[in-house]
């Protein structure tokens, strides 16, 4: 079981309140991702759940029991750190066995569990090496192994992939998702990368300045963002926002259009503009188009090859069904 409930928790560092009163419900077996720009309090929130930081006020319930004052080791949670936090002087085997050893398990039971974890994570050949002799991805797997053997109620991941290169990151992302499918244990995952959030999460929690902006499934956030912040944060490339005369016709303060919901034409369309930079990825083409009356260039994503060059005049037409309207508070008008 791994149900975690946060009730009105707050956290102050000195006079600075990093987390204003916050409520959150995490259900058993869910893969929850905390996402937000750096400094938004997502890591702090994770550390509060882990017990590495004390809450200033409020209550943390794990499986219905109040765990606010319970020390980290007794909460039944396992954490994977950004720096992996492996013990450099111990072999991989000893690293993975460490929590078991601390729990006072006998040697045979320790070995059995370590070996089965190593098999799951493809670490069997490396059990007698030290962390210093492993690659980044292998170290990451050792850190996950150390978390798995404890058979925790929930896993906590603190930006675990940020130290890996792009290709490895995609692999590890799949491996962690795969692991979640096998173990079906609650996982809480912190990242600033919205792609990781979108691809892995059952439920995304978008945070800004310690405040939860929106909670929902990846597609809910994509299709019906609550406000401009979520709309701009989720989705890649970012949503385009237009004001003034552009939004007037939609009876909104501003409108947002995702780059993939704009069609490009050389002959006719709603907005006329000049192509700036164009990025050709083969599968897609990203165009940055300057249109009159708009300060920032509009990003357009067209699938396949688009035969335009820097300086060409093009016409853009947004898909009227996919336009998001926002009021003067930045909230989305349904």
């Amino acid at each position, binding site marked *: 079981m791994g149900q975690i409930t946060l009730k009105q928790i707050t956290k102050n560092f000195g006079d600075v309140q990093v987390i204003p009163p916050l409520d959150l419900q995490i259900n058993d077996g869910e893969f929850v991702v905390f996402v937000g720009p750096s400094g938004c309090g997502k890591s702090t929130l994770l550390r509060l759940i*882990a*017990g*590495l930081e004390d809450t200033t006020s409020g209550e943390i319930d794990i499986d219905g029991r109040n765990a606010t004052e319970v*020390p*980290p*080791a007794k909460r039944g*949670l*396992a*954490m994977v*750190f*950004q*720096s992996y*936090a*492996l*013990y*450099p*002087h111990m072999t991989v085997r000893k690293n993975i066995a*460490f*929590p078991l050893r*601390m*729990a006072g398990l006998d040697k045979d039971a320790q070995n059995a569990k370590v070996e089965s974890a190593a098999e799951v994570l493809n670490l069997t050949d490396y059990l007698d090496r*030290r962390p210093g002799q492993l690659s980044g991805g292998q170290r990451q797997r050792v850190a996950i192994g*150390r978390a798995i053997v*404890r058979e925790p109620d929930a896993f906590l991941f603190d930006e675990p992939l940020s130290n890996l290169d792009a290709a490895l990151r995609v692999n590890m992302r799949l491996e962690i998702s795969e692991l979640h499918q096998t173990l079906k244990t609650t996982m809480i995952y912190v990242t600033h990368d919205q792609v990781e959030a979108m691809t892995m999460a059952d439920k995304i929690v978008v945070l800004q300045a310690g405040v939860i902006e929106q909670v929902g499934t990846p597609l809910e956030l994509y299709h019906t963002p609550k406000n401009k912040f979520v709309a701009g944060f989720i989705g890649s490339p970012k949503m385009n926002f237009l004001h003034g005369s552009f939004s007037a016709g939609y009876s909104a303060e501003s409108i947002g259009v995702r780059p993939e919901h704009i069609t490009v034409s050389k002959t006719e369309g709603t907005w006329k503009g000049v192509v700036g930079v164009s990025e050709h990825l083969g599968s897609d083409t990203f165009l940055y188009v300057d249109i009159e009356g708009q300060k920032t260039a509009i990003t357009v994503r067209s699938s396949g090859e688009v035969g335009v060059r820097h300086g060409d005049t093009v016409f853009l037409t947004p898909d009227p069904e996919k336009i998001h309207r926002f009021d003067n508070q930045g909230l989305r008008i349904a």
Partner: protein
Amino acid sequence: MATQHSRSAARFMMAPAVILLLGWMLVPLSMTLVFSFKKYLPLRGGDLGWIGFDNYVRFVSSSAFWPSVQTTLIIVGGVLVITIIFGILLSILLDQPMWGQGIVRILVIAPFFVMPTVSALVWKNMLMDPVNGLFAHLWKAFGAQPVEWLSDASLFSIILIVSWQWLPFATLILLTAIQSLDSEQLEAAEMDGAPPLARFGFIILPHLARAITIVILIQTIFLLAIFAEIFVTTSGAFGTRTLTYLIYQRVLESQNVGLGSAGGVYAIILANIIAIFLMRIVGKNLDA
């Protein structure tokens, strides 16, 4: 830039330092070697010619030799044990966030800046004096008989004085080592269910291993040569005659330069044996 040129320029510019170092070390070393094979008694006839290995045999067969080696090892070992144990404890304490951290750290280093002669005199006269010393007053306050530190517990007293001088050094090196420990490792251990003592034993102590070997290496080399503390306090009496002090006595008190030089050569060999052992330990630690 031709590397040939820069290399010769580098050699040229290093030359003064190298020559100075060589002169500083090679001249006394070769003089010691020369004297050790001679019968040389400055006040009793001067240079009396070559006598082969006689000095070496006499120095070792003297009844004072083995006790002095033993004393040297006890002092070195005692100081190492005290400075490392208390160094670790102090550095953990100093690593805790506290008010006035900067000043406290400077104060901790202070004993290291006091000259050995001065600190030995301060300990001898202000603290350990059986009549006027602070310790004597403390003992009397509890109604106890004051301890005559330098005669009754002479070896321990000297270990105490030298430890006081070297504790800052050990603390400083161990403190920097503790500060370099990744706090996420400690947090991971905490989450893995390790209580504070286990975190110290499994995480902090192994992390400090390298720093500890470096402290042992450097201190041993310097501690083998301590002299001022003994000269000022007991003058080698009450079983505090170390190898260094024995050599001093042979050369200056007995005015036998040849015999003392032979002792010096033994001291060099001893120091090198220890250095080689320690280097191998450090080397092994650096591999890990």
